[in-house]
């Protein structure tokens, strides 16, 4: 190929420079820096009243520098400063034995395992229900309204009952917690997949009709591939909700371990920094899980001839 200057973008820039300019790293860093700055500002703003109050009670003289320094080092701040959270996370992950109950990774793992189980069950259940709804008119008409109603029941209210009932029939351990995740996560999947399974164009369905394709064949060769974009989008939402469900599900099982237990214990004992580090761990977990689904999406859609 004989490149003619001007018609083809120049490729002269160094690879590192290009990576920075076009990759994700730089934008993320800049956005992150902006968020950090805002966070620090809020730390001072939100913690100042308490700090000033403390100065006055102690009768100490103070300056603005004192205030900034001290608002970032409170023991139970309204909003902990980023470095406090980072220090706490560092100390409770790397700074502690991995098997110890004080290690945050240990708790994250407990939560992750029920998240994944619940997500898998929820995705399967959601897809099955969507298949039923799309293929069976009685189900479409009668089940869907109740699926919706089920989602309006506040889980935290019935979770204890679910756990008690499950315990009564001999189910305990991971599964009851995971079922809370399932309960929350199947819904986005149902909604998305019903839409997705119904998204093939009329002409494509007609084509399958001319082949007298069975419901199964139409499903696997047409409806399923056509629904994939909806599936992945729903799965991103579902995996995130699943994590929320797993954490909520940890409460009625005695909240003995997992990120939910950490959050709760942090809140009982007023350890804001601990709450925030558990929150961050949960958020990071969610980001990773959503990222993995996104990656799977990109790989699958690329294999299916997706245009970039």
């Amino acid at each position, binding site marked *: 190929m004989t490149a003619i200057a001007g018609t083809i973008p120049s490729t002269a820039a160094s690879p590192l420079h290009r990576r920075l300019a076009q990759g994700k790293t730089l934008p993320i860093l800049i956005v992150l820096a902006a968020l950090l700055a805002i966070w620090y500002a809020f730390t001072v703003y939100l913690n100042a009243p308490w700090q000033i109050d403390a100065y006055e009670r102690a009768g100490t003289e103070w300056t603005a520098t004192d205030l900034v320094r001290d608002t970032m080092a409170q023991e139970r701040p309204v909003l902990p400063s980023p470095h406090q959270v980072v220090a706490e996370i560092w100390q409770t992950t790397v700074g502690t034995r991995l098997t110890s109950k004080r290690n945050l990774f240990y708790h994250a793992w407990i939560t992750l395992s029920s998240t994944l189980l619940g997500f898998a069950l929820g995705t399967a259940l959601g897809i099955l229900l969507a298949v039923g709804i799309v293929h069976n008119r009685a189900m479409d008409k009668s089940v869907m309204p109740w699926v919706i109603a089920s989602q309006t029941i506040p889980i935290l209210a019935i979770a204890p009952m679910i756990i008690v009932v499950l315990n009564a029939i001999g189910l305990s351990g991971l599964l009851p917690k995971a079922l809370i995740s399932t309960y929350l996560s199947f819904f986005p999947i149902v909604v998305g997949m019903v839409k997705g399974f119904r998204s093939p164009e009329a002409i*494509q369905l007609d084509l399958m009709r001319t*082949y007298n394709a069975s419901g199964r*064949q139409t499903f696997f060769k047409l409806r399923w*591939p056509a629904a994939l974009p909806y599936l992945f989008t729903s799965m991103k939402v579902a995996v995130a909700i699943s994590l929320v469900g797993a954490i909520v599900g940890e409460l009625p099982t005695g909240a003995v371990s997992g990120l939910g237990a950490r959050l709760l214990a942090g809140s009982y004992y007023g350890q804001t920094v601990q709450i925030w580090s558990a929150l961050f761990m949960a958020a990071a977990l969610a980001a990773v899980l959503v990222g993995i689904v996104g990656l799977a999406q990109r790989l699958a859609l690329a294999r299916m*001839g997706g245009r970039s």
Partner: protein
Amino acid sequence: MNAEPAIRQHAISPQPGQKVVEARGLGLTFHTNDGPVQALSNVDLSVARGEFVSFIGPSGCGKTTFLRVIADLEQPTEGAISVNGMSPEETRRARAYGYVFQAAGLFPWRTIEKNVALPLEIMGYSRAERRERVARTLDLVNLTGFERKFPWQLSGGMQQRASIARALAFDADLLLMDEPFGALDEIVRDHLNEQLLQLWARTTKTICFVTHSIPEAVYLSTRIVVMSPRPGRVTDVIESPLPKERPLDIRETPEFLEVAHRVREGLRAGHADD
């Protein structure tokens, strides 16, 4: 179509002379957001086994609709129709026809070869036979070399050819083709016309063919059905006196031009109604 021996007859083969399509007083009205649209009105037509019938008529007159009724993709609102002596639905269930749609309708997530293999997969052909048939029909429509491409990587005409290949890959006794060659250049079109005619002459297929090209209709058909604008009615049915054996240059004979003229007159009469 030189792989003739491999072409098998399907289970349901009507006897010669038997009616393949038989429509009586057929009518179809669509109900739309602003009032009903009558697409077909009082269509009487019968197509015998082994015939090659072309449908020609102004845009929007109901040609596609009629083909869709035969294929059991649309339910008539009046009159009756039988296909292969059965209801259209039974015929469809027997997989007794192949349909080429007006738009290519390829599945964007399948490569070209996978698209052509789709009906074969559904009908349970073995992997080896699938491969063989896909290769053969893609060759027939000059798409060898594009097996691994996705539809959006093909030109409009190539997509249309892929959809023709898809309908020819399995051997249905009845072919319903809706402007299959509309987006093709004259040379390729001539080539495919010849191939189709050969295929038809060699086997006992019945073909219903929608086209806008008068020469194409005359060249291919044993009978030409001229339709009038909405509501679609059959205004003229022209029998072709041409022999079964038709070299391309038959198109310059007086008989041919005479038939073409009659078709054009029929069409014009329809348009005058407008």
